[in-house]
């Protein structure tokens, strides 16, 4: 970029704008952290600092139970939906098969459907399904943690797929072709070329799924059963009866946990040899390979 004062001025304005956006982003977070140390029942009036709410939180069996449920649901649903979502993304983006169009459309619906509609329809579905299974197989099933997990996976698959597809679309098939030309099996190609390339997308999708699962209220409420109250549902209920800094304390703990999780996953991405190299500079790597004379560098075909 040229060094004109114009550019530098613009750069400075952009920087200032970015800072302001960060302040905007963190204002409520700062507030919620600060007030979690408030020695007063009221979330708006500051009295004095104390760890009281953190103490209360860890002693509150209901909060801990809800936290455990949330983590379990989030963990399982994120893993399953990331796997299924990635499969979906690869299938839609890289292959042509009959029914692809319909699947493409179907995959977008969970993103646009209103929460309460999804909640009600899953409730009706489980109701009918349990009835059928009950009369056919004599099973007596009810809603609970498993149904919540199933529900979360249902909407998360699409979100993961969207993120991974976006990443997939960025890289043309040249590299996959190259690997094939180098006699790599499909699995090897996937493992050493495709997967490392889409890893940021998969990681992003997984993070999104985790966030959505941990924050979901409406769908969870409807399909939950005995003993399966999750944290956001619990918080939602607390709001009814009075917001105390207990909620802030819980929120801060979850925030800290999420940050640790992400820190770990970022650490994983840095390591890993070729993968990291490719991530750092895919263009350079591609040029290296294609310059070596692989025949199908141009015009990816699917």
């Amino acid at each position, binding site marked *: 970029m040229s060094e004109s004062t114009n550019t530098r001025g613009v750069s400075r304005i952009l920087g200032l704008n970015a800072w302001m956006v960060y302040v905007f982003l963190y204002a409520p977070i700062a507030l919620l952290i600060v007030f979690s140390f408030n020695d007063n*029942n*009221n*979330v*708006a*009036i500051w009295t004095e600092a104390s760890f009281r709410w953190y103490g209360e939180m860890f002693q*509150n*069996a*209901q909060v801990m139970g809800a936290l455990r449920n949330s983590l379990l649901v989030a963990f399982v649903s994120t893993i399953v939906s990331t796997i299924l979502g990635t499969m979906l993304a690869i299938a839609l983006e890289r292959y042509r098969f*009959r*029914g692809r169009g319909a699947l493409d459309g179907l995959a977008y619906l969970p993103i646009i459907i209103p929460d309460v509609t999804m909640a*009600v329809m899953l*409730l*009706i*579905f*489980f*109701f*009918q*399904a*349990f*009835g*059928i299974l009950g009369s056919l197989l004599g099973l007596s099933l*009810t*809603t609970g943690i498993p149904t919540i997990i199933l529900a979360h996976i249902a909407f998360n698959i699409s979100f993961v797929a969207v993120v991974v597809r976006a990443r997939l679309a960025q890289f043309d098939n040249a590299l996959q072709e190259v690997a094939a030309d180098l006699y790599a099996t499909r699995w090897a190609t996937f493992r050493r070329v495709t997967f490392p390339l889409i890893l940021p997308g998969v990681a992003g999708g997984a993070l999104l799924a985790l966030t959505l699962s941990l924050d979901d209220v409406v769908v969870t*409420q*409807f399909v*939950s*059963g*005995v*003993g*399966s*109250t999750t944290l956001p*549902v*619990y918080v*939602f*209920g*607390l*709001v*009814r*009866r*009075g*917001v105390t800094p207990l909620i802030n304390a819980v929120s801060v703990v979850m925030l800290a946990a999420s940050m640790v999780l992400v820190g770990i996953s970022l650490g994983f991405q840095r390591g890993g040899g070729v993968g990291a190299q490719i991530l750092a500079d895919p263009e350079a790597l591609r040029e290296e390979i294609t310059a070596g004379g692989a025949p199908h560098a141009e015009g990816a075909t699917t």
Partner: protein
Amino acid sequence: MQKVVRIIAMLSVISLVLAACGDGDEGGDGGDGVDCEVDQVDGDLNFYNWSEYIDPELVTAFEEQYGITVTSDFYESNEAMLAQLQAGANWDLIVPSDYMVGIMISEELLLPLDKDAVPNLENLAPRFRELPYDPGPEYSAAYQYGTTGLGVNVSIVGEDFDPSWALIFDPTLTTTYPGGVSVLNDPRETMGAALKYLGYSLNDTDLEHLQEAADLIAAAKDGIATFDSDQYDEALVNGEVAVSHGFSGNMIVGIGEADNPDDFTYILPKEGATIWIDNMAVPESAEHPCSAFTFMNYLLDAENGAALTNWNYYGSPNQASIDEGLIEQEVVDFYAETDTAEGLEVIEDTGDYEINFTDYLATAKS
């Protein structure tokens, strides 16, 4: 392969739709009731209640006394609870509100009370035994009650204000209050208050009257800062609004915890207001009904009933607790007013007209 998948898909759809049609409006079959004895427990209890409605220690004491575990879950709306129950969820004890008990009885979703197992029913005050939605009572036992009224900041409104719904519905008043007022975001409660102000019953289904109420609310909008069913007590106490429409329990607690409690008071408007009752009931699909009835009996005991009220500050329907002086005086005094107030009504299900209440409020807000 694809054909097989498609056929299976079609079959599943058809079978589900047929099942749905077949069931139609299958509710419970009422059941003949169960036969439990006093203090009998038949397994761990699954308890579905509103949040922050019972002291966890009271529950723990029950667990220790009877040697069973209580799993507590919480819901935020009667309708969501109803939906889950109809879909087959199997809680043992639930706490539906007045109108919902009426609906559940007509849908045959509740077990009749096993009165042998709940001798403490006797402790209920007479007026809480002959409730319009469940005379007897046959299916439910009153848990806590309260009223819906107005929290008023007297330092803004003045000491000699007219205790009327005008405090939230009269724009010539409300627009003079810094911050405005807060009104409940509940079709039945808000439309109900407007109906009472106009001199009608809050269960009125005359469409003209409903239109009048909607027009009243629409005209009052300028002074209404927010429609809020959750933070009404905080908004009042933090000085965000001058008058707040809300439920008695939260109000009394919120005002009590304020830095300046003398600045606030809770009143029942002279035109009448809602009195509401939450009730314990055992669903027909309960798997441990005896444990449920035992817990019900336990909570109806004079001491436990008092403990319940002293924790959540709602009204106690337990005459025994009151007679034995176990309830905190503050609470007794607070609710003494409701015993003498005129024009208190219980919300009843208006059947087809529920849609109208919702729509008229929506129209009023537009």
